[in-house]
């Protein structure tokens, strides 16, 4: 029989206290999992919007956000004409509103864009895209919440467009957005002759460096980044990820303080009991290990509960109508590993002082303690 077998006995004896500790860690884990899952999912969706079947993105250098990037269409044509390039698709982003829906992402693109060629056309057809003036196409999710069937008019800003088709894509942002032919989008946003980015597919990916040099030499205002480079360097992604980790860590900090408080209370209320353990032959290390063991058990239970709770939230959120399909959770193994490590480290760190305190309790003095 090992001294640590008392860990579970003690947790059982102080159920409420243990449950409060477990809840603190569980909420921290659930918050971190949910936030990171949503943020990584959102970043993933945005990356897929940009990188759809392409290798490189070309956009305006030093721009704070892609929504503010302006790439002249003539530059896009030059890029398309480069020998390394198999295809180049200009894309104009914007945000539009419709009565009751102040923020809807709008994609201005050409009919040949891979987003449309790969999409499932639920109503209408790609051949019709851009064939007539004043037509708009809806993502499947947008069609649900805008309640405007094909053939009916939809108010977008101060203008009206006739809904000419509905497409389903695998991307939540696209599915919750609207699609305009590039010319119509340029007119709507008062940005004639420009796009936000050009998504480029190379004939041979080994020629990436040469392509990058060619673009940046001919168009010093522009920058060409490989999709992976873009994800790592794009400020908005970095801010989102940092914010997600920061918020998650704050949640953990609260959980850790909860464990520290729980363990400290637990030790203070058991001073005589700990003295008796010492009298019965427990070493300082065995007493400290007991406290650390209780904190670790609380952390593990909190981790399991938190992962189940956070996982449940991530399963439910994408189906909540309020989110209009913008939530597509993405939880990688690294995120799970990071959360697990953070939970255990937080709980154990929170228990270090109580454990040291418990280990240093002097039996003779503590037995006089009331």
């Amino acid at each position, binding site marked *: *029989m090992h001294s640590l077998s008392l860990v579970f006995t003690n947790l059982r004896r102080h159920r409420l206290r243990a449950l409060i500790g477990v809840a603190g860690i569980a909420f921290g884990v659930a918050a971190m999992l949910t936030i990171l899952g949503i943020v990584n999912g959102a970043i993933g969706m945005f990356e897929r919007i940009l990188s759809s079947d392409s290798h490189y993105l070309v956009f305006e250098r030093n721009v704070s956000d892609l929504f503010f990037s302006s790439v002249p269409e003539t530059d896009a044509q030059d890029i398309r004409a480069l020998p390394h390039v198999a295809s180049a698709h200009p894309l104009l982003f914007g945000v539009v509103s419709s009565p009751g829906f102040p923020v809807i992402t709008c994609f201005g693109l050409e009919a040949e864009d891979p987003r449309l060629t790969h999409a499932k056309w639920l109503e209408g057809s790609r051949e019709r895209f851009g064939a007539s003036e004043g037509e708009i196409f809806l993502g499947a999710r947008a069609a649900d919440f805008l309640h405007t069937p094909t053939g009916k008019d939809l108010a977008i800003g101060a203008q009206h467009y006739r809904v000419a088709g509905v497409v389903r894509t695998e991307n939540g942002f696209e599915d919750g957005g609207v699609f305009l032919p590039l010319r119509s989008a340029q007119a709507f946003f008062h940005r004639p002759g420009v796009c936000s980015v050009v998504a480029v597919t190379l004939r041979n990916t080994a020629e990436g460096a040469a392509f990058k040099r060619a673009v940046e030499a001919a168009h010093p205002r522009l920058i060409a980044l490989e999709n992976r480079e873009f994800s790592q360097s794009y400020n908005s992604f970095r801010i989102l990820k940092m914010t997600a980790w920061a918020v998650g860590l704050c949640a953990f900090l609260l959980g850790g303080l909860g464990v520290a408080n729980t363990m400290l209370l637990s030790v203070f209320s058991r001073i*005589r009991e700990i003295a*008796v353990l010492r009298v*019965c*032959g427990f070493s300082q290390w065995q007493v400290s290990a007991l406290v650390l063991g209780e904190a670790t058990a609380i952390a593990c239970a909190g981790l399991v509960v938190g992962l189940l709770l956070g996982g449940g939230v991530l399963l439910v959120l994408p189906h909540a109508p309020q989110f209009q399909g913008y939530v597509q959770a993405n939880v990688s193994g690294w995120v799970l590993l990071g959360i697990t490590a953070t939970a255990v480290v937080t709980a154990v760190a929170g228990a270090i002082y109580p454990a040291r305190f418990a280990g240093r309790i*002097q039996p003779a003095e503590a037995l006089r303690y009331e």
Partner: protein
Amino acid sequence: MSDRGSIVVRARHVWKSYDQGRVSVLQDASLEVRTGEVVALWGSSGSGKSTLLHLLGGLDTPDRGELSVCGLDPTLEENRLELRRRHLGFVFQLHNLIPDLTVEENIRVPALALGRPAGETAARVRDLATRVGLQHRLDHRIQDLSGGERQRTAICRALLNAPALLLADEPTGSLDEATGDSVFALLRSLAQHDRITIILATHERRFAEACDRIIRVRSGRLLTDL
């Protein structure tokens, strides 16, 4: 294990004070206790009996003087753990059992410190519980026991690792007269049966007189055997 008659406890010129020397608790205390003896430290409350037991048990350290318990110096940290784990048992006035645990779980605590096999420990727990008449109470929680049963549980816990020396600090102090008598009789019979040496601190003369030897403790000084 020491032979009968050999010295189990030796204290020489031991001094102990608290509050930076302002409160003198033990003054020049010296004693010897031999194997199998049941010795009473008899004195009023605050005379220094408990302090002497704490020093012998390595729960506290003297200001001056020499101590030897079961051949080990209890003032040395490396000896204290060994003493508490293998050579000493403690019984206190307040039983100091762990609440919410069962009788069996409380008795088992010293075995946890040593990492003893569960089967061997369970047999020892059953044997001790039977000898003190608690065999039917093993699954009961401490809160459900009477004062006498709690003290008998504490005695079983103290004896679990078969110590050579039992230090009992007013073990009958919180019990009524009849229960106190039965607990004292139990201690005596266990000492006789298991050849355990007992040093018992008590303020009650009748228990002191029932021991093999009485050492009077007054104002921190040990007086000659009565």
